C-alpha cells in the first residue's frame, strides 16, 4: 500500500522535495504474495455459496472503498493546487453536507442493508429445526476436531475426526461446539468462520458448489498447538458421498493382523474407538476408518504408516500439549504393528 501511494504522489505532484524512495517498487514482491490468495484455503477463490457471498461482499467493499478513497484524494489534491478565488461559503457548505454527511450515510446504510440481507443464510438461528438433510456436529478439542454426521438416512450418528466430507450442491448444517477452550471453525473456500465456544452451540450452514479438497484451520488461538490444528474438507459428488457415509456407518474391514491385539492390549481403546472392536474410548479421536483419511493428527501429517508410528511414539513432540501420552516405550514391533493395523482401517 505504501509503495502504491508513493507512486501516486510522485506522479501527481512532480516536485523534487519528495526524495525517490528505494522502496518505490516494494509493492512488486508484495504482489508475489498474492499467489497465496489462491489455493485450497482461500476466501478469494470461493467454492461454496456462503464463501461466494462473502467474496462478493469483499469485492464490493474493496472497489467501493477504492472509489471513495480516490474521490477523497482527488478532492484533496484539487484543494491543495487551487490557485483561483476561494469558493463561496455556501458552495463549501453544500459540499460538506453532501460529501460529508449524506453520501457516507447512504453508503453505510446500503452496506448495512446488504450485510443484513446476507445474514440469514450465513447465520442460521439456533434452536431452529434442522432444515438440512445432513447435519455435521464438529467439536473443537485441544488440538483436534471431533466430527459426527447425522443424516436422515441413518438412525445413529456416525463418528469421525479431523476430516469433513460434504456432498456437492446440498445444504449442510454445522453444529459447532467446544469441549475446552474457544476454537473457531473456518473453511475459507466454503464459508465461515464461526467460533466454537465452550457451553454454547453455534450453527453454520454451508453449500458447496465445487468438488475438491479444501483446508480449514482453527481460527482462534486455542493453546500451544493451535497452529497444528487443521482439517481437510472434501466436497464429493452426492452419490459418492452417500456411498462413503454408508461405509462410514459400518465397522472397518477386518484385516487379519496382530496389530489389533497389540492396540487393545496396550490400552489404546481406553481413549479411542474402533467400531466393531473392544476399543470404545471417547476421549480421543475415533479411529474407525483412520486409514482412509486424507491426513493425520488434525491436518498436519501425511496419512502414512510411518507418520502413524511416529505420532504414537512421540505425540508430545509432534503436537506439544497434546492430551495423548507418549508411547515411545513400546517395543518397535508393537509400534509398527499398531501403525500398520490403523493404516489398514479403510
Amino acid at each position, binding site marked *: 500500500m505504501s509503495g502504491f501511494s508513493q507512486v501516486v504522489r510522485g506522479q501527481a505532484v512532480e516536485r523534487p522535495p519528495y526524495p525517490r524512495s528505494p522502496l518505490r517498487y516494494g509493492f512488486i514482491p508484495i504482489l508475489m504474495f498474492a499467489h497465496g490468495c489462491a489455493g485450497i484455503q482461500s476466501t478469494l477463490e470461493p467454492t461454496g455459496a456462503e464463501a461466494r457471498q462473502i467474496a462478493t461482499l469483499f469485492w464490493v467493499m474493496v472497489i467501493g472503498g477504492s472509489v471513495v478513497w480516490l474521490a477523497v484524494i482527488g478532492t484533496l489534491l484539487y484543494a491543495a493546487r487551487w490557485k483561483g478565488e476561494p469558493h463561496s461559503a455556501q458552495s463549501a457548505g453544500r459540499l460538506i453536507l453532501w460529501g460529508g454527511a449524506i453520501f457516507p450515510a447512504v453508503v453505510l446504510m446500503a452496506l448495512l442493508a446488504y450485510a443484513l440481507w446476507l445474514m440469514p443464510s450465513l447465520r442460521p438461528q439456533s434452536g431452529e429445526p434442522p432444515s438440512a438433510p445432513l447435519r455435521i456436529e464438529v467439536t473443537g478439542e485441544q488440538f483436534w476436531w471431533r466430527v459426527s454426521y447425522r443424516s436422515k438416512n441413518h438412525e445413529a450418528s456416525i463418528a469421525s475426526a479431523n476430516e469433513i466430507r460434504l456432498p456437492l450442491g446440498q445444504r449442510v448444517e454445522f453444529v459447532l461446539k467446544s469441549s475446552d477452550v474457544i476454537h473457531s471453525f473456518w473453511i475459507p473456500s466454503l464459508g465461515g468462520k464461526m467460533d466454537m465456544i465452550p457451553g454454547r452451540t453455534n450453527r453454520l450452514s454451508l453449500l458447496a458448489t465445487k468438488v475438491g479438497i479444501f483446508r480449514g484451520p482453527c481460527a482462534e488461538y486455542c493453546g500451544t498447538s493451535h497452529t497444528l490444528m487443521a482439517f481437510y474438507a472434501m466436497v464429493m459428488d452426492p452419490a459418492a458421498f452417500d456411498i462413503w457415509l454408508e461405509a462410514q456407518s459400518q465397522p472397518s474391514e477386518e484385516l487379519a493382523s496382530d496389530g489389533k*491385539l497389540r492396540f*487393545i*492390549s*496396550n*490400552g*489404546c*481403546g*481406553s*481413549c479411542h474407538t474402533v467400531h466393531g472392536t*473392544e*476399543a*470404545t*474410548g*471417547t*476421549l480421543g479421536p475415533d479411529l474407525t476408518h483412520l486409514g482412509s483419511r486424507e491426513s493425520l493428527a488434525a491436518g498436519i501429517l501425511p496419512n502414512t504408516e510411518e507418520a502413524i508410528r511416529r505420532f504414537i511414539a512421540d505425540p508430545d513432540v509432534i503436537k506439544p500439549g497434546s*492430551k495423548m*501420552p*507418549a508411547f515411545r*516405550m513400546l517395543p518397535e514391533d508393537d509400534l509398527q504393528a499398531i501403525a500398520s493395523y490403523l493404516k489398514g482401517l479403510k
Partner: protein
Amino acid sequence: MFVRWWHMVLVLVVAPLAVILFAWIGFFNVGASTGHWKITEWFLHFAMQSAVRTYALSVEVPDELPRAGVQPAAAHFTTGCAICHGAPGEPRSPVVKRMLPQPPDLTTVVDKWSDEELFRIVKHGVRFTGMPAWPTQARDDEIWAMVAFLRELPSLDPQQYRKLAYGSTGLPSAQHSGFERALADCVRCHETNGAGRSALTPIIDGQSEAYLLESLRAYAEGSRASGFMTQAAANVDTDDLERLARYFAAQSPPALERAPTSHAASRGREIAERGLSARRVPACLGCHGGSAHNPAYPKLWGQRADYIEAQLRLFREGKRSGTAYSHLMLNAAKKLTDEDIRAVATYFAAQASRSTMTTR
C-alpha cells in the same frame, strides 16, 4: 578511641583469615571421645528443638494416624532405624552409644515431641547429627505411617515388636546372603505367599512378572519413590530381583472373598468400565481389564482398596513413577476426586480373585 576504616578492614578480612588459620593448624579437636562443652551441647540442642518446633508449624496432620501402616513402618524401622536407636529387646550397641550426639533410645523420647514434630524430624532428618532424611521427599504417607509406629513403640514389648518387624516367625532371618536372604526380607511384610500383612501392602502374588520386575528395579534405583521399598530393594542383586519377581508372580493368590457390592463399588464400576468423559478420565479397564493386556500393566482385580487409593493419590499428585508405562496414569488420575478414587479402589478390591480371570 574512634572506629576508623582500617578497624573495619581488620574485622572483615583479618578475622576470617585468623579463623581459617586456626582451622588449618588443626588444633580444633573434632574427636567425639570428649563430647561437647556443656554450653555447646546446650546451644545445639536448643537450636535443634527450636528449629523443629518452628518448621513443624507448616506440617498438616492427618485426622487420624494411619494405623494400617504400623506394620510396614516397624519392618522398615528394623532395617533403617534400629541400628542407631535400638528397639524393644534390641538395645543400642556400645559403638552407637559413642556417637556424638548419642542417638536417643526412642522409647524414652517420642513422648516429648508432637506428631508434627516427629513428622518433621523423620522426613528431613537433623543436620550435624547422624539423623538422615527420609530416602524420598515424595512419600508423606510413609512418614505418617512411621509416626504412627513411633507412637506405638514405647508400649511394645520385644515379642510384639518382633512380630511386627520380622513376620509371623518373630525371628530375624537366618540367611546371610543371596536370594534366600532377599526373599526373607520381602516376606517380613509381604508374607511367603505375597498376600501382604497390612491394608497398605499390595497383594503381589499372581501379579504380572514384568510389572513386578520393573517396579522392583524402579524402587531399587529410586525412580519409584518409596522409603520402605527403596531401602528393601536397593541392595538386592539384579539377578535376585528377577528371581523375586518370578517367585511372587508364580504364587497363587488365596481365594478372596467377594465383598458385597456397595454404592461406592457401583460408581467405581462405572468409572472403571466407561471412564468419566466430562473430566477426561479414561476407562480403567481399557488397560487393566479385558481379555489380554500388556504385562507391564498391573492386575488390579482383588487388590487392596487402601493400596489402590494411596497409589492413585500419588499419581494424581504426579509423585508416582515406576515402569516405563507409569506416565500413562498421570493424565488418567489427574482429574479424579477423592470420592472417585475411593470408588474405583472399592470396585477393584471387591472383584473376585485375579487367578480366576483369564490372562494372556
